[in-house]
C-alpha cells in the first residue's frame, strides 16, 4: 500500500527484486504493483542478490529511487559487498555529488515454520555499518508509515519486515500518505515500574508480558525501538529516568546485539537512574534452529516476565 502511494506520487520510485512482479513477492508485499505501474517500474531481477544491491546503487545514483526486496534476510550476504562498500559510502566518498536513496526490504526473524536460512535475525550486522539506517516496524500501521518515510529518505535504509507479523494481525490502515518519523521510538504502552525496549515481532511477546505483569500490579512501559540505527536515545533515557529499571528484549542473538548498545547508552547516560541491573532477554548465541525448536529459541513471555521480576527483586 505504501509502495503504491509513493509510486503514484513520485515517478522515480521503482520496485526491484526476485518475484516482485507478476507474483507480487513471496509475502505479497508488492502484489498488484506491476499490473498498475508496468514492468519498467516493478521489475523482477535475476536471481542474484549482489545484482539487486549493485543495480540499486547504479539506479539510485542516476535519478531513480529503488525499493529493493531481498527475499529473506538469510540471503542478504551476497549483497553486503554492495551495501557496505558502495551504497552506504557513496555520499561520503563523493562529498555529496552522488547519493543512494535506496530502500532494501527483507523479511526478518522466525516463527513461521520456514526452512533453514529463512528465520534469522542478523540486524546487528547491518546496524554496525556507518551511513545506513535500519528500520523494523511492529504493526501494519507502522509498516505503512515507516516505509513511506524510508522511501522518502535521501539515504539508504534497510527495512526489516518481521515474518511473524505479516499475518499475525489484521489492522485497518489509512492509505493517507502520512509518513511516520524515522530515528524515533514509539511508546506502545506507558508504565512506571520498568521500561521494556524491543522491536519487530518481539513487541507481541513483550506486550503480552506487560499485560501479565499488570495483573500482578507491575506497571511496565513498552518502547518499540522502530529505528534500530541510529538509536533514539532520548526516548529510552527519559523512560528509564521515570521507571528506574530496564529490560531489553530481542529475537536476535544476545552477543553484541543491538540490546548491548542500548544497555551501554543507558549505562553511560542513565546509570544513576537505575534501581537494578539492566536485563537482556534475547535469542541464544546459537544457530537459529529448524522449526521444531524455533519457539524455544525465540524469547517467550515467561522469560520476559522473569527478567522483569529479577529487576524488581532488590
Amino acid at each position, binding site marked *: 500500500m505504501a509502495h503504491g502511494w509513493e509510486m503514484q506520487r513520485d515517478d522515480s520510485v521503482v520496485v526491484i527484486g526476485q518475484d516482485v512482479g507478476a507474483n507480487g513477492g513471496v509475502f505479497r508485499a508488492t502484489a498488484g504493483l506491476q499490473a498498475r505501474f508496468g514492468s519498467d517500474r516493478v521489475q523482477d531481477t535475476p536471481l542474484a542478490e*549482489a545484482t539487486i544491491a549493485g543495480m540499486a*546503487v547504479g539506479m539510485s545514483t542516476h535519478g531513480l529511487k529503488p525499493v529493493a526486496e531481498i527475499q529473506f534476510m538469510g540471503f542478504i550476504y551476497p549483497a553486503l559487498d554492495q551495501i557496505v562498500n558502495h551504497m552506504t559510502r557513496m555520499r561520503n566518498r563523493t562529498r555529496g555529488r552522488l547519493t543512494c536513496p535506496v530502500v532494501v526490504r527483507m523479511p526478518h526473524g522466525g516463527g513461521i515454520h520456514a526452512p533453514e536460512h529463512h528465520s534469522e535475525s542478523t540486524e546487528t550486522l547491518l546496524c554496525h555499518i556507518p551511513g545506513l539506517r535500519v528500520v523494523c516496524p511492529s504493526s501494519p500501521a507502522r509498516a505503512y508509515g515507516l516505509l513511506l518515510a524510508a522511501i522518502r529518505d535521501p539515504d539508504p535504509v534497510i527495512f526489516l519486515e518481521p515474518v511473524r507479523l505479516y499475518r499475525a494481525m489484521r489492522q485497518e490502515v489509512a492509505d493517507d500518505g502520512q509518513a511516520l518519523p524515522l530515528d524515533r521510538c514509539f511508546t506502545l504502552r506507558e508504565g512506571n515500574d520498568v521500561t521494556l525496549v524491543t522491536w519487530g515481532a518481539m513487541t507481541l511477546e513483550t506486550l503480552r508480558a506487560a499485560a501479565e505483569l499488570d495483573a500482578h500490579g507491575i506497571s511496565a512501559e513498552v518502547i518499540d525501538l522502530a529505528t534500530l540505527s541510529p538509536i533514539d536515545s532520548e526516548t529510552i533515557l527519559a523512560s528509564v529516568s521515570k521507571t528506574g529499571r530496564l529490560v531489553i528484549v530481542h529475537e536476535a542473538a544476545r552477543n553484541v546485539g543491538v540490546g548491548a548498545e542500548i544497555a551501554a547508552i543507558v549505562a553511560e547516560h542513565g546509570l544513576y537512574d537505575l534501581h537494578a541491573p539492566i536485563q537482556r532477554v534475547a535469542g541464544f548465541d546459537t544457530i537459529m534452529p529448524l522449526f521444531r525448536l524455533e519457539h524455544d529459541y525465540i524469547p517467550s513471555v515467561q522469560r520476559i516476565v522473569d527478567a522483569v521480576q529479577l529487576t524488581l527483586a532488590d
Partner: protein
Amino acid sequence: MTTVAEFKIDYHQVLDPEGKLVARLPSFAEDVNEVVKMYEAMTRVRVFDTKAVNLQRTGQLGTYPPSLGHEATHIGVGAAMQPEDVLAPVYREFGTQLWRGVTMTEILKYWGGDESGNDFSGPRHDFAWCVPIATQTLHAAGAAMAFKVKREPRCALAYIGDGGTSEGAFYEALNLAGARKLPVVFVVVNNGWAISVPLKEQTATQTLAQKSIAAGIPGIQVDGNDVFAVRDVVSRALETARTGGGPCLIEALTYRLSDHTTADDASRYRSDDEVRTAWTTEPLLRTRKYLVNAGAWDDAKEAALLHDAAALVEAAVTEYLHLAKPSTDTMFDHLFAALPTHLQAQRATARAYATKPAPSKPGASKHSGS
C-alpha cells in the same frame, strides 16, 4: 549429436606496432588533427603518471596505481564516449578521466588521501574510483537500467581488469545487461597481470571476450595499444547500446609496463625480457610513427608537447601540494543528508581532538597497503 550453438570472437587492429595501417582507417582518424589530439592526451597522461609515481616515492602522495602502457585504451575509450554517458572506472584509468574533464589536481587530491578529489569537476554523473574489484560493473548496469527506464539515449561504460573477470559481480553484471538488453559497455583491460598472477593462472579461457557468450551478449577483442582500434570498437559498441541494440563486452589487450601499484615490485614475479618485449608494442610509439609518416608530427612538436605537458603537471602538483588538510567535519558532514544527533556529538569530539596538519606537505606517504 548436433551442434545447437556456435560462437566466434573477432579481433580488431587498425595500427600495427610500426604505425602502419592494417585495416581501413576509421572515419574519426581521417582528420589528422583528431589523431594529434589523442596523441597529445596520451602523452600528457604519461607525463602525469611519471610525476605521480615520483610524488609517491618522495613521500608526497599515497599508494598510486600507475597507468603506464594503458594510454591507448584509456584515451580511446574517453574519445569514444559522449559527455552525457556515464563512466564507471576501476582505479587506474587516469587517461579517460582527464579526457572527460577531471583535473590532475583532483586526481592527486584523492590519491593524496582526501575524498573530495572524487567531488570532481568532470562529468558530475560519472562514478568515482572503485577499489572493490568488479563491483563497479553492476553500478554501470544499474545506471544503464535508469537510462532505459527514463528513456534517455545515454550509455554507461564500466572498466574491469583481467583479474576482475574472475569475480562473481562481473558475471552478474553481464547476465543482467544481457537479460534486460541494457545500454552498457564493459571494457576489460587485459594487461596480463592481476598483481602477480598471470592470466593463464587466472582462467583457462582462450579469450576474456568470450566470457560474454554465456550472458548472451557479443564480445570482441581489440588491440588495446592501438588507439584507433579502441576508439573505433568502443564507439560502435556505444552507438549500438545507445540505439537499443544492447550491451557489449570488449577485451582490450595491453600490458602493464609498471608495477601494480607503488607498493608493488613487479620484478619479483616477471622477467625483464617480458617487459622489454612489451615496450616494443607500447601505444605512444606507434601513434607517433603514424603521425610522422602522415607529415603531421616532428621532433620540434614533440619537444613542445613534452614541455607543455610538464608545465601543466607541475602547475597541478603545486596546487595539490598547497591544499589544506581537510577538516574533520568532512568525515561526518556527508555521511547522511542530515546528521543524526549522536553523530553531532562525535563530530564535536573529532574537532576538539583534530590533529594538526602535517608540518611539511599533505598526503604523506608510508602507505604499505596494495
